[in-house]
């Protein structure tokens, strides 16, 4: 039981809401990132040459002012920092929520909440596992399950999605991402205090649907197009 005394010298920055704001800001940075990343992936449909030159271009943004991969590394460091903040706050808040209800209900009905809102922690953990695999797969180790080329980004991608279980891993991850974004988009707007009326709340929830469908749907087009043989 908490101590029945009044808190003295309270600071706004030490509150649970501050942790939530940190999650919302890092989450919105992720949304911007995944939108850009998804858009970039669609270059696959312009063919091997266009896709590979896009991948190369990512490494030469800002040249010659910045060294090769300089800007890319700035973005990467920013994303890694956001990831650390996002996950650290998620773990802190999840543990706090666990302590807030030490005895569970025998019967508990959830009557008015989205499935996505109640699966944020599991979904987040799924995305984190996928993220590690995905970076090993395409960036750090570059794993080609068919034993083919690894330095040609287009071939690496098409070869990967030629393998059925690889396609499944990616589609499941996109389903998890869609759920996370469905709730996360509206939740971040609410956490930032931007949904002060029923209309604003309705719009934020709609934005959650749009972001989830656009991001997860957009990403999924690539493995699906390999699956049905449009992209080879």
């Amino acid at each position, binding site marked *: *039981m*908490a*101590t*029945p*005394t*009044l*808190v003295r010298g*309270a*600071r*706004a*920055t*030490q*509150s*649970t*809401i*501050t*942790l*939530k*704001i940190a999650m919302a800001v890092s989450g919105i940075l992720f949304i911007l990132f995944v939108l850009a990343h998804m858009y970039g992936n669609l270059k696959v449909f312009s063919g091997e040459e266009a896709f590979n030159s896009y991948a190369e271009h990512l490494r030469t943004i800002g040249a010659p002012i910045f060294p090769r991969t300089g800007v890319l590394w700035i973005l990467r460091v920013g994303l890694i920092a956001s990831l650390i903040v996002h996950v650290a706050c998620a773990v802190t*808040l999840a543990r*706090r*929520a666990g*302590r*807030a*209800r*030490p*005895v*569970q*209900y*025998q*019967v*508990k*009905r*959830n*009557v*008015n*909440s*989205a499935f996505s*809102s*109640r699966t*944020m922690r599991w979904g987040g953990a799924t995305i984190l596992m996928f993220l590690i695999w995905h970076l090993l797969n395409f960036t750090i180790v570059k794993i080609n399950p068919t034993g083919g080329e690894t330095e040609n980004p287009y071939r690496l991608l098409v070869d990967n999605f030629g393998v059925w279980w690889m396609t499944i891993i990616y589609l499941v991850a996109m389903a998890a991402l869609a759920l996370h974004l469905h*709730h996360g988009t*509206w*939740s971040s707007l*609410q*956490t*930032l*205090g*931007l*949904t*002060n*009326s*029923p209309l*604003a*709340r309705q719009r934020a929830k709609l934005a959650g649907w749009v972001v989830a469908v656009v991001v997860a749907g957009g990403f999924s087009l690539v493995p699906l197009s390999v699956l049905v043989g449009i992209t080879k």
Partner: protein
Amino acid sequence: MIGTMNLTLKIWRQPHAEAQGGMREYQVSGISEDMSFLEMLDILNEQLQEQGEEPVAFDHDCREGICGSCSLMINGQAHGPEVTTSCQLHMRSFKDGDTITIEPWRSEAFPVVKDLVVNRSAFDRIIQSGGYISANTGSAPEANSVPAPREKAMRAFNVATCIGCGACVAACPNGSASLFLGAKITHLGELPQGQPERYERIVDMVAQHDAEGFGGCTNIGECAAACPKGIPLDVISQLNKDLRTAIKAGR
């Protein structure tokens, strides 16, 4: 009897705060659909008393939906299946032969005192830490001397209906009291009288909320669905917005 029900009740029994509790099963019969839920529990208690058993302790006071003390988790829903308080819930919401599970609010900050009674003093301390305005006592000021814009006044009045029942905490999967906090913050923050202490208030009330052991909000929305007074989720947005403003002001 025509129009009466026989029910099976599964109730959390716990002799005192430190005791180990458990679920017990009871049968009640001849329950009229016009009875309130608490009257149904009164019948059970009379029955238990006749049998020489300890009656079930549950909190209640006004029995008209305004005091907020009748905290009961009924079949997994705070205050049961209707949007109202347990005392204003009627047995017509149930049917003959039903099994009804009744539990206390489950929250680290609301320890069980006995059976279904929990201690909600944590809410009092949150109010004490900032849920007030400072005004000179003496003769009442002229009512129209401080004009309040209609929109703001309406919002303040609507959320001032919060009765501090704790259903929002009981329903929240995170055990957060953000809806209660948001109702108080919005109620006082929308009115001119609430302005001088506005940002001090939010920092102190949120800190007290956190210190009491309530969880953080993840905007799930079970609270607003359980609230007998229909406090909407946008008060939590207001809460977050005011805290953000307090951070910017260096508080």
